[in-house]
């Protein structure tokens, strides 16, 4: 499968904050949505900054559409739509003024499409952005990101702070966008329930390190948590244990092959769990 985005062994250290992104690698195929999950400060925004060249990586390679993107590669940026968390645009502009400015940036700017999104999102065109609610601001940013016919959407915490109804609307827009087979979405978020709804792949990062990139189906159907007593835990095959966490009277064990676990450990309770719980186990659980 061809990838729209390839991140290979990317590292970045900030000397002032001592934060490091360490050898992060993942691929986003064409036609897929990837959730980029991590707690606040895990390195999601840094990684997106490296992808978009707003931050200079120390080492590693990032390929977009099969090529590394440099500052001069403006044609490549025509194919990318970006949404950051919060106010992306000067707040004393109106949506109409913003459209006029964006038309000057993108050769493929489609004003009719922009107005269609604005109408669908019920956004006032002549009201200053500073009078928009947070949900409206994010809808406007998404409308802008989609109105120049991009192939790749990169969203950095674009759904955080939005109410469930607006979030759901946004997720529908992303699903609609992905109907074209050469379109992809990279969506960083710490709201894993959103990703469970739409993502094809989920990449977990923690403290600047990549924990795993797993397809959502694999997470849902193959990952599970075994609720073990201590005596049961001691009998487990260590190669089956991805991570474990001690609770009061039990030990939760994350496994990546539920069928194998069900076959091998018949007396142990095994639960299919949410992405949130899997993420917590991967981050907070101990490894053998």
């Amino acid at each position, binding site marked *: 499968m061809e990838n729209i985005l390839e991140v290979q062994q990317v590292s970045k250290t900030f000397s002032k904050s001592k934060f490091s992104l360490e050898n992060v690698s993942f691929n986003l195929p064409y036609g897929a949505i990837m959730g980029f999950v991590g707690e606040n400060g895990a390195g999601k925004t840094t990684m997106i900054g490296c992808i978009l060249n*707003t931050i200079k990586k120390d080492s590693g390679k990032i390929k977009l559409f099969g090529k590394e993107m440099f500052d001069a590669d*403006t044609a490549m940026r025509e194919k990318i739509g970006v949404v*950051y968390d919060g106010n992306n645009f000067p707040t004393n502009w109106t949506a109409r003024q913003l459209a006029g*400015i964006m038309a*000057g940036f993108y050769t493929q700017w489609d004003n009719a499409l922009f107005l269609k999104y604005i109408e669908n999102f019920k956004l006032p065109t002549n009201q200053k952005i500073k009078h928009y609610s947070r949900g409206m601001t994010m809808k406007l940013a998404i409308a802008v990101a989609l109105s120049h016919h991009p192939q790749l959407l990169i969203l950095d915490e674009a759904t955080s702070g939005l109410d469930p109804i607006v979030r759901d609307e946004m997720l529908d827009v992303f699903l609609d966008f992905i109907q074209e087979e050469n379109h992809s979405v990279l969506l960083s978020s710490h709201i894993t329930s959103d990703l469970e709804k739409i993502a094809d792949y989920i990449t977990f990062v923690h403290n600047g390190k990549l924990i795993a990139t797993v397809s959502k189906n694999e997470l849902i159907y193959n990952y599970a948590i075994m609720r073990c007593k201590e005596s049961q835990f001691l009998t487990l095959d260590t190669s089956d244990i991805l991570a474990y966490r001690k609770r009061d009277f039990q030990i939760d064990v994350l496994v990546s092959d539920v069928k194998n676990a069900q076959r091998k450990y018949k007396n142990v309770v095994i639960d299919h769990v949410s992405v949130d719980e899997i993420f917590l186990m991967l981050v907070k659980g101990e490894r053998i």
Partner: protein
Amino acid sequence: MKGLFRNNFFAVWINAKVFLIFMLLFAIVVTIIPEQTLQMYFIMIGIVGFSVIAATAIGNEFSLKWGKYKLTLPVKRTDIVRSLFLNQIFWTIVGTLFTGIVTGLSYMIQGFSFDQFSGIFSLFILAVSISFFMGAIFIPMIYLTGEDKIVVFLIISLFCAVSIAAMLFNIPLFGNAIIITCALMLFAVSYPLTISIFKRKEF
């Protein structure tokens, strides 16, 4: 570049239109009352004022995500800097034309209010030079130090610009030529300097 020009124009216009109203009222006063000191203030405030508004408006953009967002648009960092310098030139020209037209109008209605013709010419040179000195200092400073120091660096750059201009203005021979040449040279040097700072800047 078209998008950058439009963006810069909108950013400046929000404040410039308020300043323009003030300057129009000032222009009425200057046209009615033929007073040399008033004319001097009018020219200085008009030219330097428009360029200060241009500089601050652009500086303010850094305090928003828009500064970072612009880097994801199909423009080069060099183009962003170039558009800022052209924007500074544009608003200095706007200020010069505006004050020039009003001064000309005042001359037609009330007669010449300056002691010598060279005096008014020198004043225009001084005001334009201060604008270029200010822009040359302010723009790279903002890129170097960040958006949270816009006000202090505006004051510093304006103070430096006035000091340099005043110092050069007192040179008896070729004063005007020296001051405008120095201002343009510093402005020209500031451009590649800002590019090199911005190329290293991370958002």
